[in-house]
């Protein structure tokens, strides 16, 4: 039997398999960057608030950190930073938070830190059931969340990558960045509950925006190695 065609085809399959395996290793490398975020932002003091172990397990055990920033007035803002390697780490808040008993009521994308900065996705969630803690208004608990994915070079993106086929274009962009360009990415969530006295949620949004900008700048600085 003529072996040559077998060798040719086998070589082609081997090269493809090796490239595929290489791509998987590159994805692992993409999730190896977990930046340091400041322990104090202006008058805000931070305390460590590690993410839930079960949540981390569901996300495929990525590198992750969480902090709670407390203002001098006792207002909390939570921050979670997750190093995003494989796509199983990319859980979108519109899916996860709504799965936890909330409804997405509004969404807006805008630059995080001036017109030259990358975009961030701001979302407002409302609890599905009335909360006993909320005695005024309609009785529902509300939460403002800023979400973005930030690369080491400071670029941000807000598109979801959780859907396999639905988000295939966004996944291809991330995949190409991680495999061919060696980009490292982190998922950032900054969120705070709306206090019942803050009827238009202006104060909560100001707090979330302030912390988000500080985190964005700190990550940009860390990514540049400064």
């Amino acid at each position: 039997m003529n072996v040559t065609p077998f060798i040719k085809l086998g070589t082609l399959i081997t090269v493809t398999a090796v490239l595929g395996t290489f791509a998987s290793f590159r994805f692992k490398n993409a999730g190896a960057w977990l930046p340091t975020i400041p322990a104090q932002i202006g008058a805000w003091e931070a305390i460590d608030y590690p993410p839930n172990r079960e949540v981390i397990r569901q996300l495929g055990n990525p590198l992750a950190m969480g902090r709670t920033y407390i203002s001098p007035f006792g207002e909390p803002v939570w921050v979670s930073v997750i190093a995003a390697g494989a796509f199983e780490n990319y859980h979108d808040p519109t899916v996860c938070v709504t799965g936890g008993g909330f409804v997405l009521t509004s969404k807006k994308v805008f630059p995080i830190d001036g017109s030259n900065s990358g975009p961030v996705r701001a979302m407002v969630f409302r609890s599905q059931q009335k909360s006993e803690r909320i005695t005024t208004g309609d009785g529902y608990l509300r939460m403002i969340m800023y979400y973005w994915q930030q690369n080491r070079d400071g670029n941000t993106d807000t598109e979801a990558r959780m859907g396999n086929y639905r988000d295939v274009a966004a996944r291809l962009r991330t995949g190409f960045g991680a495999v061919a360009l060696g980009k490292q990415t982190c998922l950032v969530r900054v969120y705070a509950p709306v206090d019942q006295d803050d009827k238009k949620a202006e104060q909560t949004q100001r707090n979330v925006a302030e912390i988000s900008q500080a985190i964005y700048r700190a990550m940009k600085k860390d990514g540049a190695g400064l």
Partner: protein
Amino acid sequence: MIPATDTPTPTSPIAETPSSTARAKDVSGAKRQLNLASLARQTGAFLWLVLLYLWLNLPYLWLILPYLLAWAVPFVWCLPQWADSNHPQVIQPWIPVLAFILIASRRKHLHALLRAVEKIPPKTWLERGNSALLILGCLLYLFAHLVQIKGIAVIALLLIAVGAVHALFGGRMIKSLWIPIVFSLLIIPPPDSAVDWVLLKFRTISVKVAGVILNALHTGNKTTGWTMTFSPSGDVLEYPIPAGGLGVIVPSIILTLWWTLLWRQKAITCLVLPVLSGVIALILNILRVTAAGFFAVRSPKITEILLQLNSWILVAITLVLVFLASKALSALVAWSKKKRGAKALRNSGALFSRAGKAFNAITIPFDYLFQGIGYLSKQTRRAGSVINLIVVPFDYLFRGIGYLFTLFGRSEQLIEKGLKRLFPKKRNRRR
């Protein structure tokens, strides 16, 4: 003064001194190391020769080993579903083995085809075979690794396999292997969100049906989603994901389909038997879910065993039942082909109709009688539930047979038409 025993003797100066002993040990160690190194080298060379021999004499290894290597990462992606014995996709890792058996069952035909191709080489570009499909598969494989979608990766791997066969043996081989190739498509994992949605629907519907049956068995309950709240105790039973039964239904359908393909049954059999298998698996699962609910307030241990039952056990029972059903069906078909059988079937419509009416007439008084016994015996709760357990299924069985017979009776004309088509009169045949 140094004692005489401590001085080294001239005959064995090296052995006695500690430094010389160490040196001797070093020498033997080095020798051993040298021996080990040479042994490793010799073994390596031998293995290399064996591999070279195999690769030169078994050229398929050039394809199989890289192909297995290509499967490594997608296999890891699919493993969570494939390793879960209650997941509907648990059958998927066995698809290549089943497809291979299908190919092996056609080996004589394939050998003949190869010989024919050698004698008369194909003329067209498509029949001659080319690497287009293989290259397309490789590109798709790389794309799948960039987007990390297991479904696309498995499609790409199938394309690579089919492309390799096309490149080596040509289009005629692909044409004659179309059944195993189409069967292999069952290995493609569907989107997780779709699977989760179907699992959820099946779980909810199964629990709802079980709730209705349990209410009929006088085990009061209320279902919400996949939880069942029993009354009057208020106990809550939360059914797990496998309660949907897809872990039984999907493997049963696929294995039955494979069985019909292996024995080259007619197209109608390849369609009917897997559907029958799915129905039997569904009924078995509903029985399991109902029994779990029935014992939840009586013996929770039995409920636990039933809900944690490995799906493969139910698959095996389903396959046995399908086998028996297929035997019965084939006997019925063989009987109907005989003149007497055909005539009997033709007359069966009216018979069924009459029997149905009779059964319905019997069932109604029996139903009231059994229900009465059930209500009376409620004073002694355990005895009542046992009577209900025995009586109510019979009641439903009678009703079911009655309805079935009535249905057959009504479809008399339909059966007649079908029989006329199946067994046309002789003079029609002559024409």
